[in-house]
C-alpha cells in the first residue's frame, strides 16, 4: 500500500512513496561521475603489484612524455602538497589506546599491500592517464609478506610497519562480572573457534571525487561520493591547510555506501590538492579493480569463544578472544573498531552476567579493514548463536527454549546491560516466538523427511540480536571513532507556507528525503508536496556528522522533530497574537491553522507564514518569531533495536549447494517512520548478510597476491539466490528518543550469518558438523560432510 504525496494523512508510519525516486528513474541524478566540469583532468594511479616490497625506483619519464599528460607524481613530489596521514591515539577522548599508523598518500620507501598507490598520473582523460600509468617502471625488492593473521600476531613475524615492535595495532582487555566463578559453577562449557571471511561493502558506485579550485575567491568545491561530507571537508581543510569555510563539499546522490564511504581515503585528499595546485578541475573515479584491491575490506576475524551454562540451560558466563586482520593501515580517520564491536555485540539479548573478552587488531600486508554495515556485530552474533545451538544439543534442551529461558523479558526493561549501557526496551522473546510461528518451526521434522526423500538435507536456524543503534557521543568514544553523536536539522517555513528541511548528512539510498519530509509534514500540518528536504551540500545545510551506526532516523529524525516543533510553536504564537486566540487552543491541520477542539479554520498556513515573516497585524516588531530554526539532537547514551531471524535451508550433499527456502525476520526498531522503507532496508540487509555467509570472500594467496580482482571472482548475491524475506514488525518505541525511533539501517545484515550457519548445521546434523567458518561455500560444505564420513 502506498500513500500518494499531496494528501494530509498522517505520514509517520505510512508507506509514502519516495520523493527521490522520479529523478533516479528518469535518469537525472548527480552521482560524482555525472558531474561534468569543464576542462576537467582525470587521475589514474600506478598501484603496487606486491604485498610487501621495498621500492627502489619509480621511473616516470615515459609517462611524463605520454600524450595528454599534465603531471606525474610519486611520493617525493608530495612534499608541500600532502603530508603523510596519521592515525593515532587521541588522549583527549576516552578511546582504547592504539599505535600510531603513518599512511603515506603515495607509498614511500616500501609498499604494504597489493593495490597501494605508488604514483599518480594526471591527464586529459582517464584513458590517457591509464595509458601513461602503464608506462611507469617500478623497481621493487620483495620482502617477506605478513599474510596469515595468527602468524602476524606471533613474536618474530616480519613487520608491516618497521617502526613498531610487532604487528599489534590495538589490544583491548575487558572483564565484566565474576567470570572465573561463572565458569567454576558451570555444568557445561561449550567452546568453538570461528573464522570469518574477508569481504567488502561493494557499493555499486565505487569511490569517486572531483574538485575545482576558484582562484578568485580562493575557495575549493568538491563533489564526493561519501557518507560524511562535513568530516571530509574538515579533513581536506586540515590536510591542505585551508580554512573549512573555504571548502564546499557536495554529495547529493551517492550510489550506496554501507559504511565503506564513512572513511576518508588518500585519493580523496589528493584530488583537491591537485585541483588547487594545477588550478584546473580534477577528478578520480575509482574502477572496480581498484575498489576490490584498495578501497576498504571488512570483517576478517578469528574468534575463539566459550559459553558456560548450568544444567537447566542458564547461561552463566562467556569468554571471547577476538583477532581482527585490519590490513596495512586501518581506517582513516577512525583508527579501528571492528574487533571491539564484535566483542560488544555479545551477549546481545541474553542475560549473561559475567563476560570477559580481549580483542587484538593486527596489521598485515593487505588492504585495510574498516566499517561495513553492522561492523563486527554479524560476527559476534554468529559466534554466540552457534555456541547456543551447540550447547542446546549437548544439554538436550530445545534450541528455542534455551534461548527463551535466557532472554531479557519485556518487563525487565530498562535492563542494565553488561557493557554499562542501559537497554531501554525491547521485544526479544516475542520476536523469536513470532518468527518461529511464521516459519512453522514445529513442522520442520516433517519437512526434513520430505527433503531427505529427495536426497537433500533440510535445516532450520535461528538467531536473535540487539543492535546498538544511533550511537551517542559517549558510545562512539567507547567504540573507538571519537566523534559527536548529535545531528542537526534546519527548518524554514517560507513565506508561501512551504517548508525547506536542511539536514547535516546525506543519503546513500536510505530514503532520507522522504522520511524526514514525513516527519516535518506531520508536525507542521502540511502535505508532503509542501516539504523539500535539502541534503548533501555543506554550503546549504547545517553542520552534521556522518551517516552510520543506524543513526539517521533517531538523530537526524530527532533534530527534524525538534526543529519542526519550534517552528510550529512560533507560527502558532504569531497566529495567537494576530487573532487574539490563546496559543493553547490552536492546532495545525491540513494546511490550516485551526481551533484544537472543533477544527474550525482560522487562517491558511501560507497566509500565517507570510504574516509572521512580514510581522503583520499585532506582532510586535521586536518579537522573535522566526520561522527558520536550526536544532540539534543528541541521542540518549544508548539506543537498541532488536530482531529475530529464522532461516530454512536445503543442502545438496552431493554438490554442497545451499538453497535458502524461507527467511523470516521479526524486528523491532521502535517507531516506524515508513514501513515500506524499513522493509526495504531489511530485505537489502539480509541480502548482504547472505552474501557474507554463502558467497563473498576476498582471497589473497600466501604471498599476499589478490586473487579476487573482479566481480566474476568475487561473488555478490543475485536475484536468483536471494529469497523474498518474510517480515513482521513489533513496535516498542524507545522511551528515551524523540519520536520513539530506534534506528535499523544495518540490522538486516547482522543475523543472516548466524541464522543460516545454524540452519546448515541443523541440516547436516547427522554429520556432527563443525560449522565455524564463513563463507560456507560448496567446497567448505563438502569438506564438512567428508570430514564426518
Amino acid at each position, binding site marked *: 500500500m502506498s500513500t500518494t504525496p499531496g494528501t494530509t494523512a498522517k505520514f509517520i508510519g505510512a508507506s509514502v*512513496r519516495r520523493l527521490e525516486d522520479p529523478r533516479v*528513474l528518469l*535518469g537525472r541524478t548527480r552521482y560524482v561521475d555525472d558531474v561534468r566540469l569543464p576542462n576537467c583532468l582525470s587521475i589514474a594511479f600506478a598501484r603496487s603489484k606486491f604485498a610487501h616490497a621495498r621500492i627502489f625506483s619509480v621511473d616516470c619519464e615515459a609517462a611524463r612524455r605520454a600524450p595528454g599528460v599534465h603531471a606525474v607524481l610519486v611520493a617525493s613530489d608530495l612534499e608541500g602538497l600532502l603530508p603523510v596521514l596519521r592515525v593515532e591515539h587521541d588522549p583527549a577522548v576516552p578511546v582504547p589506546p592504539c599505535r600510531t599508523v603513518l599512511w603515506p598518500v603515495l607509498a614511500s620507501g616500501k609498499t604494504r599491500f597489493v593495490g597501494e598507490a605508488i604514483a599518480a598520473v594526471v591527464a586529459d582523460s582517464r584513458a590517457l592517464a591509464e595509458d601513461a600509468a602503464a608506462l611507469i617502471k617500478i623497481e621493487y625488492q620483495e620482502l617477506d609478506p605478513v599474510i596469515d593473521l595468527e602468524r602476524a600476531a606471533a613474536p618474530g613475524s616480519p613487520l608491516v610497519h618497521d617502526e613498531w615492535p610487532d604487528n599489534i595495532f590495538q589490544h583491548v582487555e575487558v572483564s565484566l562480572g565474576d567470570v572465573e566463578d561463572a565458569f567454576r559453577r558451570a555444568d557445561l562449557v561449550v567452546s568453538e573457534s570461528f573464522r570469518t571471511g574477508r569481504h567488502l561493502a561493494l*557499493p555499486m558506485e565505487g569511490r569517486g571525487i572531483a574538485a575545482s579550485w576558484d582562484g578568485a575567491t580562493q575557495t575549493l568545491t568538491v563533489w564526493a561520493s561519501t557518507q560524511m561530507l562535513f568530516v571530509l571537508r574538515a579533513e581536506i581543510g586540515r590536510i591542505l591547510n585551508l580554512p573549512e569555510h573555504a571548502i564546499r563539499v557536495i554529495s547529493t546522490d551517492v550510489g*550506496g555506501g554501507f559504511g565503506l564511504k564513512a572513511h576518508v581515503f588518500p585519493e580523496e585528499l589528493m584530488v583537491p590538492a591537485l585541483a588547487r595546485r594545477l588550478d584546473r578541475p580534477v577528478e578520480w573515479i575509482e574502477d572496480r579493480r581498484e575498489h576490490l584491491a584498495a578501497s576498504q575490506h571488512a570483517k576478517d576475524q578469528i574468534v575463539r569463544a566459550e559459553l558456560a551454562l548450568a544444567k537447566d540451560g542458564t547461561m552463566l558466563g562467556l569468554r571471547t578472544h577476538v583477532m581482527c586482520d585490519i590490513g596495512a593501515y586501518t581506517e582513516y580517520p577512525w583508527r579501528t573498531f571492528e574487533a571491539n564491536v564484535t566483542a560488544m555485540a555479545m551477549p546481545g539479548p541474553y542475560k549473561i552476567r559475567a563476560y570477559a573478552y580481549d580483542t587484538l587488531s593486527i596489521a598485515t600486508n593487505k588492504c585495510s579493514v574498516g566499517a561495513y554495515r553492522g561492523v563486527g556485530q554479524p560476527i559476534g552474533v554468529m559466534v554466540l548463536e552457534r555456541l547456543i545451538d551447540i550447547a542446546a544439543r549437548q544439554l538436550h534442551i530445545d534450541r528455542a527454549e534455551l534461548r527463551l529461558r535466557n532472554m531479557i523479558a519485556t518487563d525487565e526493561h530498562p535492563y542494565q546491560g553488561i557493557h554499562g549501557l542501559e537497554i531501554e526496551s525491547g521485544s526479544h522473546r516475542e520476536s523469536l516466538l513470532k518468527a518461529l510461528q511464521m516459519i512453522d518451526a514445529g513442522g520442520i521434522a516433517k519437512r526434513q523427511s520430505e527433503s531427505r526423500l529427495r536426497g537433500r538435507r533440510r535445516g532450520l536456524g535461528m538467531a536473535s540480536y540487539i543492535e546498538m543503534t544511533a550511537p551517542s557521543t559517549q558510545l562512539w568514544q567507547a567504540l573507538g571513532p571519537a566523534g559527536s553523536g548529535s545531528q542537526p536539522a534546519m527548518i524554514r517555513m517560507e513565506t508561501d507556507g512551504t517548508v525547506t528541511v536542511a539536514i547535516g548528512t546525506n543519503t546513500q*539510498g536510505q530514503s532520507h528525503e522522504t522520511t524526514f519530509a514525513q516527519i516535518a509534514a506531520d508536525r507542521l500540518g502540511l502535505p508532503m508536496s509542501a516539504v523539500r528536504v535539502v541534503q548533501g551540500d555543506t554550503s546549504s545545510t547545517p553542520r552534521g556528522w556522518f551517516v552510520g551506526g543506524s543513526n539517521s532516523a533517531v538523530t537526524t529524525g530527532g533534530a527534524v522533530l525538534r526543529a519542526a516543533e519550534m517552528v510550529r510553536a512560533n507560527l502558532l504564537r504569531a497566529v495567537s497574537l494576530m487573532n487574539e486566540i490563546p496559543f493553547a487552543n490552536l492546532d495545525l491541520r491540513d494546511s490550516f491553522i485551526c481551533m484544537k477542539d472543533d477544527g474550525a479554520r482560522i487562517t491558511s498556513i501560507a497566509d500565517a507564514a507570510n504574516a509572521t515573516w512580514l510581522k503583520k497585524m499585532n506582532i510586535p516588531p521586536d518579537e522573535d518569531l522566526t520561522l527558520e530554526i536550526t536544532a540539534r539532537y543528541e541521542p540518549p547514551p544508548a539506543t537498541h533495536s532488536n530482531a529475530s531471524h529464522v532461516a530454512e535451508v536445503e543442502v545438496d550433499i552431493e554438490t554442497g549447494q545451499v538453497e535458502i527456502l524461507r527467511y523470516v525476520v521479526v524486528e523491532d526498531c521502535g517507531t516506524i517512520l515508513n514501513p515500506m*522503507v524499513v522493509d526495504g532496508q531489511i530485505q537489502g540487509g539480509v541480502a548482504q548478510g547472505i552474501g557474507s555467509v554463502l558467497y563473498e570472500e576476498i582471497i589473497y594467496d600466501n604471498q599476499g597476491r589478490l586473487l579476487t580482482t573482479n566481480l*566474476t571472482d568475487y561473488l555478490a548475491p543475485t536475484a536468483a539466490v536471494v529469497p523474498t524475506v518474510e517480515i513482521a514488525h513489533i513496535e516498542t518505541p524507545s522511551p528515551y528518543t524523540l519520536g520513539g525511533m530506534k534506528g535499523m539501517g544495518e540490522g538486516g545484515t547482522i543475523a543472516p550469518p548466524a541464522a543460516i550457519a545454524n540452519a546448515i548445521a541443523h541440516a547436516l546434523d547427522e554429520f556432527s558438523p563443525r560449522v565455524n567458518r564463513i563463507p560456507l561455500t560448496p567446497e567448505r560444505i563438502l569438506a564438512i560432510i567428508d570430514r564426518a564420513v
Partner: protein
Amino acid sequence: MNQPRDRVSVTFELNGLKVEREIPVRQLLVDFLRDDLGLTATRVGCEQGVCGSCTVMLDGVSVRSCLMFAVQVDGSEVRTVEGLAHGAVMHPLQQAFWDNHALQCGFCTSGFLMTALDLIEHRAEPDDKEIRNALSGNLCRCTGYANIVTAVQVALAQKR
C-alpha cells in the same frame, strides 16, 4: 601502407533521434553515451560486463555498453533510460519501480530497467523464476531484489 584510423564516422538512432558523430575507435559505447552525449543514466559499475549497470537496448535487445565499442552501433538503434518516459509520464516499468520501492541508491536502476524492458518486450508470461534468472545478470547492492522482482511482475501484469 594504410594508417589505422583513430576516428570513424558513425550514424545511428538514439532514443528515436538520428545521431551522426566522429567517434574515437577505442571509445566504449558507455563512455560515448555519458561523456560525449551527456546521457549519464547509463552507468559504469564494473567495466567487465558483470554488474549490468551499463545495460542499454541495441536493436531491441539488452546489451552491456561497457563491453562494446561505440563504433559498433553504426546503423543500429539504441535505447537508454533517457528515452523510456514520454515527457514527465513514466514508462510502466519506471512507474512500477516507483510504486514498489524497487530502488534505494539508484545507481543500478537504469540497468535493471533496461534488462526488465528486454524481458517484458520479449516474454509473454515469465514466471517468478524466469524473472529472477533474467535479472540475475544485474547486481543491486541495496534492495535485495525482492521489490525489483515485484515491480517487474506488476509491469508485466499491466501489459497483459
